[in-house]
């Protein structure tokens, strides 16, 4: 192994801990970023999407829902950067506003599956015994299934709407978090400070709330970040097959779906919303990879 030489980022991390000043930290981040330019690209994309979500009304040149029958299916121009759709709505504005529905849905999906999964996982780990076995077997069964096919069936059964498709995707993603949280809980349960808390009579709930959850969270949040990119795609895909957001909602998947019928003659209609999905998912994946590489001690040395 690399015992013969100082692994660079270990020394660098020590430097990070030693230095408190903001400028030093920024310099360190810049140093890391320079080593992985793709992560920086990812960060830039995420920031841009965040700006789109927050400042949509200020960026969008038109009201995204304003119909203008005289300006139907116009190609991209200075007035309409991404062109217009079949009822004359400005596609640039719709893509900007679409970030709210698409990214909001993805964020909610991850949030729901993470919270529920972590609760079940920690509970299972703390309680142990038969309950734990039963829960984990159930999770094994769900994990053994093709998640997205299941989500489609579920979303179809619940009825097509953005909320239902979010719910369906969130449900099938729960088991992964259950496993992760349970693993964390089991290893934490053996830690001295948790054992100590038990000896002075702390209730399981107290231990869970104050000792286990805070310590189990960081790997779980990393996992959630990594999930985000995939979930953006799934949410959009469900909308595309008609299971998610319904027209006329400005949502990227739904926009591609409506633009599909015009693809052969009005290429811009489906192209730009799809590009937005691709770029956003890339941003999430690049940042997720970057975070994982930074946290993985085996990858650090590379």
């Amino acid at each position: 192994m690399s015992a013969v030489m100082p692994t660079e980022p270990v020394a660098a991390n020590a430097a990070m801990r030693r230095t408190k000043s903001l400028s030093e930290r920024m310099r360190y981040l810049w140093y890391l970023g320079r080593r992985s330019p793709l992560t920086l690209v990812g960060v830039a994309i995420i920031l841009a999407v965040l700006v789109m979500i927050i400042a949509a009304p200020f960026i969008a040149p038109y009201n995204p829902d304003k119909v203008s029958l005289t300006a139907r299916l116009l190609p991209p121009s200075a007035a309409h950067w991404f062109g217009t759709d079949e009822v004359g709505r400005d596609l640039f504005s719709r893509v900007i506003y679409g970030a709210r529905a698409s990214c909001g849905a993805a964020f909610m999906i991850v949030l729901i599956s993470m919270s529920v999964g972590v609760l079940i996982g920690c509970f299972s780990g703390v309680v142990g015994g038969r309950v734990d076995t039963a829960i984990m077997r159930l999770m094994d069964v769900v994990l053994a299934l093709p998640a997205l096919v299941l989500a489609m069936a579920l979303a179809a059964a619940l009825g097509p709407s953005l909320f239902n498709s979010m719910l369906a995707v969130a449900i099938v993603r729960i088991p992964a978090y259950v496993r992760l949280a349970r693993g964390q809980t089991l290893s934490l349960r053996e830690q001295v400070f948790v054992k100590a808390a038990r000896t002075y009579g702390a209730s399981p709930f107290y231990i869970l709330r104050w000792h286990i959850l805070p310590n189990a969270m960081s790997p779980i949040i990393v996992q959630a970040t990594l999930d985000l990119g995939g979930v953006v795609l799934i949410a959009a895909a469900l909308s595309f097959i008609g299971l998610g957001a319904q027209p006329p909602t400005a949502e990227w998947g739904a926009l591609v779906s409506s633009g599909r019928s015009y693809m052969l003659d009005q290429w811009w209609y489906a192209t730009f919303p799809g590009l937005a999905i691709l770029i956003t998912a890339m941003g999430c994946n690049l940042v997720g990879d970057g975070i994982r590489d930074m946290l993985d001690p085996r990858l650090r040395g590379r």
Partner: protein
Amino acid sequence: MAITRIIVPRLILLLFVVLGVAVITFTISHLIPGDPARMIAGDRASAETLENVRRNLGLDRPVVEQFTIYIGNLLQGDLGTSLRTNRPVAADIRTFLPATLELGTVALFIAICLGVPLGVLSAVYKDGPIDQIARTVSVCGISMPVFWFGLILIYVFYAKFQILPGSGRLAMGIVAPERITGFLLIDSLLQGRFDAFRSALYHIILPGFVLAFANMGVITRQIRASMLDVLQEDYIRTARASGLRKGMIIFNYALRNALIPSITLLGLALGDLLYGAVLTETIFAWPGMGTYVVTSIQTLDFPAIMGFTIVASIGYVLINLLVDLAYMLADPQIREV
């Protein structure tokens, strides 16, 4: 034998999985807000007609009884009758499955052929320009909305330049070869139908590539990661210290070990492949399971949706079992004990 010790629990899990899917699909189809009887009978049907339809579908019996019947039917391979096509779902699936399998096989083949070398190059030239390009391509693949990518390729290659066909499995006017395997590429060759082969080949290029691209990204990333792991192992240092040639170290000493953990990923990638196939087929009007299920979703044909879910789930679990077996066979530490 170590292998039986590992297989038996997996087979037991498989049993539970099948039962689990059955419970899930049954529950879903009985919780649906839409009324299937109303769907069949149409909006203007009388109350009496509705009642008749219900009775015919068995929808009027107690839930537990319905479930027992459902399981019993499943065990006999009866997946119910499609509300839309009025044919047994099992028969429908038999019709559409080969097209999906053919597409999936071609896509997987392309994905592996492109993804593995790209991953190896990326790891060997880590942080160099080749690595940056390979990683960009791989992230692009992973982040690609399949349905959109398909549309773009259709626009470019079919609408704009008219190089490749954009929908279906065969050109119009070409009679499909007689069905032997269900794979048009194979059946046409077996029967010496080169016109059909040519047409089938042209038709599978675009959907095959679209479906392959996403999986290629996953494969590249996985191979890169495990190659990087392996390349810093002591035995690679030994190989370098004993002067073995670079190509030999990379392919015979490193890639061999890097592929073993990647095998398990292959099973998981099949889940993505299945899901990607649903979207790809929709875009390219590919007459397979994906198109079938999406049409069924749009017409609330629940027996068809659930039949698809069950078949897909069982297939997925079985394939993963096979993949795990392959994994065990590839690792001498497990094989030889």
